[in-house]
């Protein structure tokens, strides 16, 4: 393969990782705002958070991407395509992860909040010192699923001509004609990236569990749907 084609692959890979990492970070921000917002005492905060999670979970990410790339500019906001891509992916994954945040916060035993009240912590301290450090540990395994879903969703940006990993593969397929090989290689590539992310999250999970004095059994394919 010529070095020109190789450089497409590297650029595509870099963009895919960029979209995943920044999409995840921004998505995390949305998830915490909306997830905590849903248990706010203020009704309007709960309302906004609920509308956000319901709408963006009901909206196909590809359609969202088209909206940001094609419709928003007609209102006069010109977004860099890569940033539009990150925003679309983050809005989408954030809505799913918000449910994870909400569930994990709700799952902290009520006795923990009561003990924090008995020690006269302020509401902010209760959340920051007692509830969140425990809830975050419970969020990591479902966040791992969210992260892999996000990685998969980044491939959609190739349909709006952002040169990600999938887009690079399309270029190579067009210039070499090696259809089966290229797409199979692309799948393996995504599989390897997913494995790297999963392994990293697994490490994070073990570190977090240690902060609560627990241990997590090791295992390579640790990603499992968490039974409700």
């Amino acid at each position: 393969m010529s070095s020109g084609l190789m450089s497409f692959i590297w650029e595509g890979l870099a963009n895919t990782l960029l979209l995943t990492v920044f999409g995840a970070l921004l998505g995390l921000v949305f998830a915490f705002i909306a997830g905590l917002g849903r248990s706010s005492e203020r009704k309007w905060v709960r309302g906004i958070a609920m509308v956000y999670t319901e709408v963006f979970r009901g909206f196909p990410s590809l359609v969202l991407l088209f909206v940001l790339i094609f419709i928003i500019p007609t209102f006069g906001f010109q977004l860099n395509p890569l940033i539009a891509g990150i925003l679309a992916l983050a809005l989408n994954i954030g809505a799913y992860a918000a449910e994870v945040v909400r569930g994990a916060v709700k799952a902290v035993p009520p006795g923990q909040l009561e003990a924090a009240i008995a020690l006269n912590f302020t509401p902010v301290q209760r959340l920051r010192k007692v509830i969140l450090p425990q809830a975050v540990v419970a969020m990591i395994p479902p966040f791992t699923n969210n992260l892999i879903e996000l990685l998969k969703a980044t491939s959609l940006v190739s349909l709006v001509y952002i040169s990600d990993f999938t887009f690079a593969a399309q270029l190579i397929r067009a210039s070499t004609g090696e259809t089966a090989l290229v797409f199979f290689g692309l799948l393996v590539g995504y599989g390897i990236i997913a494995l790297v992310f999963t392994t990293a999250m697994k490490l994070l999970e073990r570190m977090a569990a240690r902060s609560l004095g627990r241990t997590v059994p090791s295992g390579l394919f640790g990603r499992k749907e968490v039974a409700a």
Partner: protein
Amino acid sequence: MTTTNGEFITFDGVHKSFGKNVVLDDLHFSVGAGERVTLIGPSGSGKTTILRMLMTLTRPDRGTISVDGDYLYHEKSGDQLVPASEAHIRKVRSRITMVFQHFNLFPNMKVLRNVTEAPIHVLGTPKDEAEAKGKELLELVGLGDKLNAHPSQLSGGQQQRVAIARALAVDPDVLLLDEVTSALDPEIAAEVLDVLRDIAKSTDVTMLLVTHAMKFARDVSHRVLMFNEGKIIEDASPEQLFNEPEHDRTKSFLRSVIDES
């Protein structure tokens, strides 16, 4: 009614129901400063609800509760009583703390930090001072060697002793003990009760206890209140109440508790 030395904690016309179930019905009683009062009675008779109300974990439907002259759920605005602000509740609550049946240690903090977190971040005690005092208190409850353990690495009895140290660390005027040994094996429970006996002897903290450990209640309390169906049916010294209960309901309750143990 027996006399109390002063009125440090006062319940006045307190009513609470959960749905149709009336838990406390027009309750009036007071507790003097430094007094140790044990609440006994069958489960569901409202004892724990009283402690939870004092800890601001359960709100009364009607009536007022005051601690050293300050209302807990109300504040004075001119000569009217209005619902208390969060700031007012925190001010009154700062004098009270609670030890729970299921310990409720914070699993994300090691043992020493469980004890020092509130002194440092709520009371504003300097860190080294809070840690020195925390170590002292953990020493007192016999856990001086577990400062850096995670709560999950401790037995139930050890966790409860940490919880007691954590409660003492905020220097409360009122200590609420809610069935603190009910989740423990009898032998372990005895160790925890010994710790509490020492504390009762060496401090003048006001204590309200809900417990089924009758011998302990007899040893430490000045007064015992017998609850039945949301009302106090007997209020007497431990000698009086345990030796010569007046009420038939008290007699049958004491018999059932003694049979159990």
